[in-house]
């Protein structure tokens, strides 16, 4: 199964990025092989519609679940329509987050945060 994690950096030891649409990188992982493909998020610096673009990328890459911190309303709409599940990760490496996901320790997210929440770096 293909899972995507929002990531601060470009290795599997990088810390998870709490933002979805404006995450710095996306790590697309295969839960069977535990192999990562890390891609830069071209939408991170876009003026608007970052969540929509990122969600569209998940669809195009055939991702079945997303592990991140927060998801905005637009991204949520797209992910829900695509029936992609969203799980809340924590501020540890993406590898650890994926381990936690495999152990079914991550909580599923249905609620969104306000628009442009991630533009201040995602801090509350």
């Amino acid at each position: 199964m293909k899972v995507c994690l929002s990531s601060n950096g470009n290795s599997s030891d990088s810390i998870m990025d709490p933002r979805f649409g404006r995450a710095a990188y996306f790590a697309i992982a295969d839960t069977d092989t535990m192999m990562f493909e890390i891609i830069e998020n071209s939408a991170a610096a876009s003026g608007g519609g970052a969540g929509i673009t990122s969600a569209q990328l998940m669809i195009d890459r055939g991702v079945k679940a997303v592990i991140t911190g927060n998801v905005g309303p637009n991204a949520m709409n797209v992910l829900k329509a695509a029936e992609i599940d969203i799980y809340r990760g924590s501020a540890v490496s993406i590898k650890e987050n994926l381990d936690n996901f495999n152990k079914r320790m991550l909580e599923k997210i249905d609620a969104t945060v306000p628009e442009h929440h991630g533009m201040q770096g995602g801090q509350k």
Partner: protein
Amino acid sequence: MKIAVLSGKGGTGKTTVSASLALSIGKCQYVDCDVEEPNGWVFLRPEIKNTIPVNVLVPEADALKCNGCGDCGKACQFHAIAVVKGKVLVFPEICHHCGACLIACPQEAIREVNRETGVIEINEDNTFLQGRLNIGEPISIPIIRELKKRLRNDVPVILDCSPGASCTVVQSVGGCDYCILVTEPTPFGLHDLKIAVQLIKNMEIPFGVVVNKASQDNQSVQEFCKQNQIEILLEIPYSQEIAQAYSKGILPVEHNGDWKSKFEELYQKVERGARK
């Protein structure tokens, strides 16, 4: 004669100057282009007669014609369309109404539908016009465009612009005969004045400066204008009396003949400047 009043920095006195000018020069048309927060009505107290909705065109996909190819989403430069499981999802608030999706669709499945983003309001004798953008809407331009279609040619027109020097100001200022740049003697006021000056020079429109809240202690704006050979049209002193009246919605020109003649003089300078 079309006069735009702009500033760069917000809160320097654009509305004070444009409303005072409107009250001083006899018959004219005041146009509030600061559609996110129009406040000229506070001082001019018009009776609104007509309210006209402003619509923008946003796409809608016909599910029967759509084959889910996703070309519309790829064409959208504003990421306002996602295509999920063969279904087009449109995000109208993000759409910039460019129509690219319509052109990109090979199935001719996209049509454009109206979406109201604000209104324009006009008084009985068309001397007062204002735009009002709906709360939460991000794009002011369509409202300003509608306002500008209704500018009069038989009387002087005063356009009260929004702060800043971005698209909304460019849209408001375009086609005007003269620009009044209102500023205040603070570092921020001067900094943003310089940006506004650059913009107006680029647009090749004659302009002059009004220094509001002027003080003998700080001559930074005057020095900048002198160095750059920019005419200072008027100085309005820093005054508690003016500020107190303003807070009650009263402008100095309403109860003080001296101020009225100062604004009449301002208008004469503007007329001269526009002819140069």
